[in-house]
């Protein structure tokens, strides 16, 4: 078999295995704790019926392995269980006929919103950061490089909410160009949706661009120091062609890697930024659910975030294998 296909299949299998183990970790973290979870959730004053209802709903009366397998099987079919957001507790106490929100119902629309936010961010940040990074590497130790170095360090060092409020201050309050609250509805038009998403996306862009640009710069500098670039210059090749023909094919792998790693970083950023802008995405849902200890939703969000993270890292891995000539053309 072609060794590249073999390596990629190996990476895919490894990624799946990791995701599987991560799901066990997430499940275990919540379920393997000592004591009775149902009581902890409802507090001291809970009626025995309510406790029993939650126990039954969570399947606490079954052994952990069975419970995990049921949860996993459900998750694979898109059934992530029922939310126990406050409004639904009535249904636990009374009969089972009450209307309940499933986790999937809660997550689906918000997941789409978050993807939209991440997409807008990536569309702005990736070309911007890669261009700046390449420029900084080509003109390293120039004034431009130094200014870029200080600004990106400052941007990386700032908490997301600081950047968010500074942007709100300048672009929403002092110069009312964009709305500071991102109240998005399902039937909103694209232009309006984009306008409301722009401020959170810009905040994320600032954070991600800084990381991405620094890593691109480092990768390109590393590449420009290689003997074959010197050789190309000594062959009298035009500077532009040295970059495009000699540096770029070899730079693809590291740059793709940088992009994927930083998109993975978006996942952490998205949580805080969605809270600041009250953006109805999965990050905000996650934080709200943590606050009210809505365990099934927390678990599900966690699993989605982890899956996205693993997927992005896997993509980075596979794309850099594909762009490596040593692997593409085996001996």
């Amino acid at each position, binding site marked *: 078999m072609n060794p590249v296909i073999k390596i990629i299949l190996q990476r895919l299998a490894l990624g799946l295995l990791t995701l599987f183990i991560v799901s066990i970790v997430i499940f275990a973290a919540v379920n393997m704790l000592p004591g009775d979870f149902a009581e902890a959730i409802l507090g001291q004053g809970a009626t025995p019926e309510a406790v029993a209802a939650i126990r039954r709903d969570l399947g606490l009366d079954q052994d952990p392995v069975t419970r995990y397998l049921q949860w996993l099987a459900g998750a694979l079919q898109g059934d992530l269980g029922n939310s126990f957001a406050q409004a639904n507790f009535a249904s636990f106490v009374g009969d089972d006929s009450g209307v309940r929100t499933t986790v999937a119902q809660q997550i689906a629309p918000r997941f789409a919103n978050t993807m939209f936010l991440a997409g807008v961010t990536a569309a702005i940040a990736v070309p911007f950061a890669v261009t700046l990074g390449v420029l900084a590497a080509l003109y390293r130790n120039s004034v431009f490089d130094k200014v870029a170095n200080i600004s990106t360090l400052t941007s990386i060092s700032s908490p997301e909410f600081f950047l968010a409020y500074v942007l709100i201050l300048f672009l929403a309050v002092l110069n009312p160009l964009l709305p500071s609250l991102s109240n998005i509805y399902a039937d909103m038009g694209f232009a309006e949706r984009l306008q409301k998403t722009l401020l959170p996306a810009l905040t994320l862009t600032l954070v991600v661009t800084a990381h991405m640009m620094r890593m691109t710069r480092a990768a390109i500098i590393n590449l420009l120091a*290689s*003997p*074959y670039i*010197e*050789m*190309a*210059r*000594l*062959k*009298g*090749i*035009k500077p532009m*062609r040295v970059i495009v*023909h*000699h540096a770029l*094919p*070899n730079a693809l792998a590291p740059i793709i890697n940088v992009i994927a790693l930083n998109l993975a970083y978006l996942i952490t950023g998205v949580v805080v930024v969605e809270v600041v802008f009250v953006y109805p995405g999965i990050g905000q849902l996650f934080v709200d659910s943590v606050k009210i200890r809505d365990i099934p939703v927390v678990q599900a969000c966690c699993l989605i975030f982890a899956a996205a993270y693993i997927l992005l890292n896997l993509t980075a891995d596979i794309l850099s294998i594909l762009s490596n*000539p*040593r692997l593409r*053309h085996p*001996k």
Partner: protein
Amino acid sequence: MSDFLVEMRDVRIEGRSDETWMPIINGVDLTLKKGEVLGLIGESGAGKSTLGLAAMGFCRDGVRISGGSVMFDGIDLLAASAEQKRQLLGKRIAYVAQSAAASFNPAHKLIDQHTEAPVQHSVSGKADSAADGIELYRKLRLPNPEEIGFRYPHQVSGGQLQRAMTAMAMACRPDLIIFDEPTTALDVTTQIEVLASIRQIVEEFDTAAIYITHDLAVVAQMADRIKVLLKGDEVEEAETRTMLSAPTQDYTKSLWAVRAFERPEKPPVATDATPVISVQGVTAAYGTVDVLKNVSFDIHAGRTVAVVGESGSGKSTTARCITGLLPPRLGIIELDGEPLPLDYRKRSKEQLRQVQMIYQMADTALNPRKSIGEIIGRPVEFYMGLRGAAKRKRVAELMDQIELPADQYIDRLPSELSGGQKQRIGIARALAAEPKFIICDEVTSALDQLVAEGILKLLARLQDELGLSYMFITHDLATVRAIADEVVVMKDGLVVEQGPKRDMFKPPHHAYTDLLLSSVPEMDPDWLTNLLKERGVDNIGDAAVDKMS
């Protein structure tokens, strides 16, 4: 207009270190006529590569030409614009780098990289230049010249890549080629083939060349004239034959003399003597691949056994088996007639003490965070139990033995010492254990020749004084000639031949030994010519190895 192709006058070059500019070349003149080959030799740090690149009007990052003039065929390279220089590079001046594997772009096929310069400089079209490339590959005796250009660099071996790079430099038929240590990274049997190819093609096209190397014997084969550099200054320059037979400067004379060092022969060992170390039928593997196959030899008290072979022959693996770092799969290793446990972790402190090791790279062999006193003092304390004043006294004695004044050096860190001094500290650390047997793993190959000779003499003296036995791992036959009593020749994990030194340097012997021995360049400028005649053109280097196996 002068009759020189290259004329460099009073060239001064500086390099940046810690925000200040330090001189690298202090006013050197260099001239080269059309079709002439100039050898540029010197030790590491002599500035020979920097000078060679300056002849192209090129400086690496952090280096600048601060004075003098560089003229190429009437063009002032220091005043020329970047664009003017670009049009010369590749077309009229070409460069062959030390590491061909790193200097070919991994993303493009060899032939595409070959045709790039002719096409970009509008010298010829892509098809013509590719056809010419194949012709050059054939001239340079690359296997499958029609097909090899369509491979990627990582699919071709090091010696072949080096020849492909020479072909690439020839693509525009330049007036001048700079060869920057083109054979340093290669094994001797491969080196010879590359040398022969380079010489042939340079002669055929009457190209002028600057050949940069640290190896005197190599430069003797290649150059019409030789220029010797030392720390950025010119020592002397003369025609090759004059330079070899009658150097005028002390420094040059001392370089030539290094080659002459040889120990007096020792009487044969009594047949019933118990060897200090006896390796018997050792087979060892990394994973499932056997890298050593049934290796046996003895090392007697007060003797030096040189283990020679090219990279991958298994000589360092043999050392790892003896020290117990790599327990062999089969076979036994005896110390003084007693079998040693195969794993070093199972050996007693006494057994560990008796077998010591000196490493190739003194930089990685000494802990950079410990003072010289601590480095030498640790085995003294660990094995002999000496502390305080007694330990200090013993460390001073040891430093005396390696000819370094204790009061000056004992509190220094390794980074404050020169390469040769560091290697001496490594020797002192081995001596501190008061061992019977020391493994010397390429201990001189990272050092300049003069310094290396000092180390060899020191080791010889210590052997006479202390009755030590050495196992000397090396790929350099000059070192073998200088220090060995017996020689073990290895190839692909097998011992191909072993015996006393005088037998080994006299024919007849095993075909591989012959090849190995005859491939080591000698100072005689006719050596390569004669050898090629002797072997026949098709039977040199790589080709000969392939034929044998």
